[in-house]
């Protein structure tokens, strides 16, 4: 039994965090190379054929999301562990489920050859499969294990939030918003901003997991007993309810880390206010119902939920734009911010989130979606969001820890080289998808129609520059990690 007075050595909590983050970053690095290989195939620089392309696409999608989720899990778990001690054994078990799941997914792709993409739509992958049945099973079981690990982690996080702030009422900041004077008089401390990120991640994460586990079990049962058929529209709704929410939560987990570290760089505080609390209530709701925008083209879907999808997609943008991105900009404004690798990544991540969010809103507009649906505009916006948003927040958090650990910062030249690689190369890569998407080049095509290949060639050059930037970043991180320790508990 673990009670509030039990104090775990901080080293144990840090070990949990670094296990999650280093595993996530290792998968991220591998998936960047897989992505480069896919873009090079589309540019006709390589020619390994569509079979391998679709397998790599499946691996890239599942791997990238899992890598970002793992990094966010590690960071947020560590932060919340400072609020209330959590049992590291549960966190390690969740980690074990997720890594075994990743191994199953990799095995399904190689040597299995599974290539239905990570958000495949039933009756895929059972109809027209070119891979053996065991590969389908390995992929489904792998995803189920990842989902179960996620569920364990979300439950532990929810328990921590409930314990730390006196139940749901305290954790949501209800009294702070509606009984402000009484709350002030009570002398209770309001939850820190990152606790709201933890609460939303835990609650929406469990809801998403319920949907994902249900459709996952239904698919596994269908794989075992093909006579058990599934309603495809139901399966698509659950798949995207899970998939969209799971992917969306990566940035809300990562922003919790920014809430903590960016104020340290700026030497200011990021206060919890009633506006911040209400904004996170909005996020709690809208993240869960925005997924309907994935089903705009499904005419069998009830029309009312199409309106819900568009409205929720728009409303989901307000809390982060108004509270977090604008709040982050104000926090930095005239603050004498220390520009280091960590602060650079965190601040740039806010800009990436804004740009990716605008791209998403454009695509979530029904009349525009008619043209952009299933074009390269879709990967354009989610790569902006993940690569120049979530990944930068994670890198920022890693460097915040390394800089605090070593007491060192990187040289201006290193920052410029890294920034040029990651923002410059990344920008060219992303622009390729936006331009091609606006020109109606379809997504998920191994061989794209013109002007896809020409744009892919430019994008591949951008991807190479990005990889160089990431390598410099990695070398710098290792240098900081190996330097003598000056402070242990940021």
């Amino acid at each position, binding site marked *: 039994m673990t*009670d509030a007075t039990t104090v775990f050595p901080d080293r144990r909590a840090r070990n949990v965090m670094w296990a999650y983050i280093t595993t996530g970053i290792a998968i991220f690095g591998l998936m960047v190379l897989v992505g480069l290989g896919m873009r090079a195939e589309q540019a006709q620089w390589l020619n390994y054929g569509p079979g391998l392309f679709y397998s790599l696409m499946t691996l890239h999608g599942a791997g990238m999301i899992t890598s970002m989720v793992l990094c966010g899990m590690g960071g947020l778990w560590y932060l919340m562990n400072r609020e209330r001690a959590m049992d590291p054994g549960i966190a390690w078990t969740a980690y074990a489920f997720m890594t075994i799941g990743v191994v199953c997914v990799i095995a399904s792709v190689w040597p299995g050859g599974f290539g239905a993409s990570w958000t495949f739509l039933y009756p895929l992958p059972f109809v027209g499969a070119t891979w053996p049945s065991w590969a389908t099973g390995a992929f489904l079981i792998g995803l189920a294990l990842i989902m179960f690990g996620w569920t364990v982690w979300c439950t532990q996080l929810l328990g921590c939030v409930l*314990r730390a702030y006196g139940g749901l009422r305290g954790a949501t900041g209800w009294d702070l918003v509606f009984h402000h004077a009484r709350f002030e008089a009570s002398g209770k401390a309001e939850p820190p901003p990152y606790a709201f990120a933890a609460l939303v991640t835990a609650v929406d994460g469990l809801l998403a997991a319920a949907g994902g*586990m249900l459709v996952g079990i239904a698919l596994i049962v269908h794989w075992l007993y093909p006579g058990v058929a599934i309603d495809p*529209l139901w399966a698509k709704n*659950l798949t995207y309810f899970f998939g969209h929410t799971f992917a969306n939560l990566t940035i809300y987990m990562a922003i919790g880390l920014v809430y903590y570290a960016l104020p340290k760089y700026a030497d200011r505080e990021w206060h919890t206010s009633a506006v911040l609390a209400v904004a996170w209530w909005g996020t709690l709701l809208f993240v869960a119902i925005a997924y309907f925008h994935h089903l705009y083209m499904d*005419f069998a879907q009830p029309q009312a939920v199409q309106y819900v999808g568009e409205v929720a997609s728009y409303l989901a943008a307000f809390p982060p734009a108004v509270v977090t991105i604008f709040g982050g900009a104000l926090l930095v404004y005239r603050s004498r911010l220390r520009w280091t690798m960590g602060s650079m990544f965190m601040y740039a991540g806010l800009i990436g989130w804004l740009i990716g969010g605008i791209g998403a809103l454009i695509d979530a507009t029904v009349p525009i979606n008619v043209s952009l649906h299933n074009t390269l505009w879709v990967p354009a916006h989610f790569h902006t969001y993940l690569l120049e948003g979530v990944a930068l927040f994670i890198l920022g958090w890693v460097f915040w820890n390394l800089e605090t650990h070593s007491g060192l910062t990187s040289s201006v030249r290193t920052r410029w080289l890294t920034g040029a690689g990651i923002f410059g190369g990344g920008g060219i890569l992303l622009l390729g998808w936006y331009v091609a998407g606006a020109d109606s080049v379809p997504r998920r095509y191994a061989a794209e129609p013109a002007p896809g290949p020409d744009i892919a060639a430019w994008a591949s050059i951008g991807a190479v520059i990005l990889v160089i930037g990431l390598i410099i970043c990695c070398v710098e991180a290792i240098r900081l990690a190996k330097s003598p320790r000056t402070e242990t508990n940021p």
Partner: protein
Amino acid sequence: MKNAVRNVICGTSTLVAVVLSFMPVITGERDIAISAHHFDHAVLMMFGAIAGLSLYRSRSGDFESPRWIWPALLGPLVAMMLMAPGFYAIVDRAPLFHAFNHLLFVVIAGLTAYAGQRYVSGVGWASALMLELMAVAAAFGYGVAPAVASAPTAVQATSSVARGPADLVHGRQIFAQNCAACHGAAGQGGMGPSLRNEHIRKGEVAAAAWIKKPAPPMPALYPGVLNEKDVRDVAAFVESLK
């Protein structure tokens, strides 16, 4: 007093759940629709979860009891696996076995909720809600397949025998007159979606139901322009498109 109320709630919920579990024995029901069956399970599990939540006695202090997290999370998974519609044909043949199967759901739901509360007070509500949401959502598509080619149910098979075989030639004529303008002469799609390989997405019964009551922008032609036989024939023709 508070504990007495909890005991009453716990006892009543358990009793209702047990009585409902034995309904297959009492009524001797057979061949219940899978979606209705899933709803039955959701109701059973709701009472089981209420019993589990009311069984829990809150303790002072700020505890995390790690070992209790596992039954709280495995419960929903095990319940969904046991709800596999592939088992229904087996349990329907043995009402007593079916009743014990239901009792198992009640126990799982109670354990899920209770274990969640024991893990951290408040988490039991979340795990119970998760289980209940999954059970209700299962009713809308888990083993319920209006849209996939599958073996017809006994009722469907009987009614199609009674109506006789569909006339594909007549179905083709109906299609050309009423459907081809939007879906293309060969069902390849146009203003409306392609209907080729529609049999993968919808069975014949579901296709006929859709034609009778489509969602906009597809016009409803039944019962004005098309009669029952027209609908059946054109649905069969659409199903034959490759």
